[in-house]
């Protein structure tokens, strides 16, 4: 029956679109639509952690950051990390809320780092060991 048959324009469009994207790959505006495809062997990962004076914190609660390493921080190297975007997001926040040149460093020691998560037979676990990526100083938000 005509109503039960495949739509030919849809089929042609699908084929052309798929071929174009497979041929070009992940180059804007083409995409492989990988969407978390590359998860082989994903049984441990770096979980991004922010600390203020050693306690968990969020960068958005602070202003006037100082300390060059903070402004050059990148996501962890050599380990898998599904939340590396959080590092860049925080870096953008710190750069737009940086201390003025010559300003006295803030009273809070601010650190960006990570802890390792791992999937074990007992379930997912998180390590207590904090591995720093960068640190500096900041002032609490008013």
């Amino acid at each position: 029956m005509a109503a039960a048959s495949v739509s030919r324009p849809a089929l042609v469009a699908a084929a052309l679109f798929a071929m174009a994207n497979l041929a070009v790959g992940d180059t804007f505006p083409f995409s492989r639509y990988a969407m978390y495809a590359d998860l082989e062997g994903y049984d441990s990962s770096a979980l991004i952690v922010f600390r203020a004076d050693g306690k968990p914190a969020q960068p958005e609660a602070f202003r006037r950051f100082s300390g060059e390493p903070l402004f050059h921080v990148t996501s962890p190297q050599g380990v898998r990390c599904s939340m590396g975007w959080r590092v860049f997001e925080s870096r953008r926040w710190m750069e737009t809320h940086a201390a003025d040149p010559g300003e006295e460093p803030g009273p809070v020691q601010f650190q960006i780092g990570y802890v390792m998560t791992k999937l074990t037979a007992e379930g997912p676990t998180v390590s207590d060991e904090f591995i720093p990526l960068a640190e500096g100083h900041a002032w609490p938000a008013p």
Partner: protein
Amino acid sequence: MARPMKRVPFGRWLMAMALVEAWFVSSREWAGTHLFRKVVGIAHLVDPTPLASMPSFFMLSAIYLTCVALWTSGRLLPFTGAIAWIVLMISASLEASAIGRPNPTLDVIFPLVMLGAWEVGRQIKRAASEPERDAFAHEVVCGVLAAIFVLACTAKLSHTGMSWTDGNPLRLLVFERSFAATPPLGDLRLAFANTPWLARFASSYTVLVQGAGICFLWPRARKLWTLAVIPMFTGFAVLMGMFQVPWVLLPIALSWSTFGLSHPAKPAPVG
């Protein structure tokens, strides 16, 4: 004698919502920034910093949102659709440049591709009547949607084979995101991460539904597939914090309605 106003189908309204959402999701990554980590799209041609300034953001927003509003009501076609598409492309490339990835987020690329496919479809049939143009473009967009989901499925299978469905990577991803959520959401994510069979089911369901996106090539199968894909995106939102609104709106729009102004109820059958 005044022309009667065309009734805008709810599918076109859903597309408009997706386009507006895409704009705000995209532009928040680049508006006012001077930090670009990658050179993507328009950043190859011009310095993106002035484009990303706040005055430029307001101007581009005004142009884009005006064009989306006019496109939705069927005015000044195809120019409003084309201009909206171009401006969203600019935003998408600025976004990708700012976040340092080869492509913008999925919330942006999906409506961008859908709008582009719609306008291309209508242009291919520009010599035909309005209903025929809309019907053809509707099928083109449906075909592109089917291809996207099949690509997503094959990407997973080509990287990991069927082991993607064993659920373990998903458990770890959700576990990591449990720390970012307050109770009860964080507790829910933690419980999911500690329930292997549930993660296996969710992973398998994801691959199955994405692969079954090929069903969108069959007009009669579209509604059923859309009903199946909604729980998948609900799971993404709850467990991963990924609110991919256009990915829910547009299959609904295409299954139960259309973007076309000539067919307020449903497009003419093609086959």
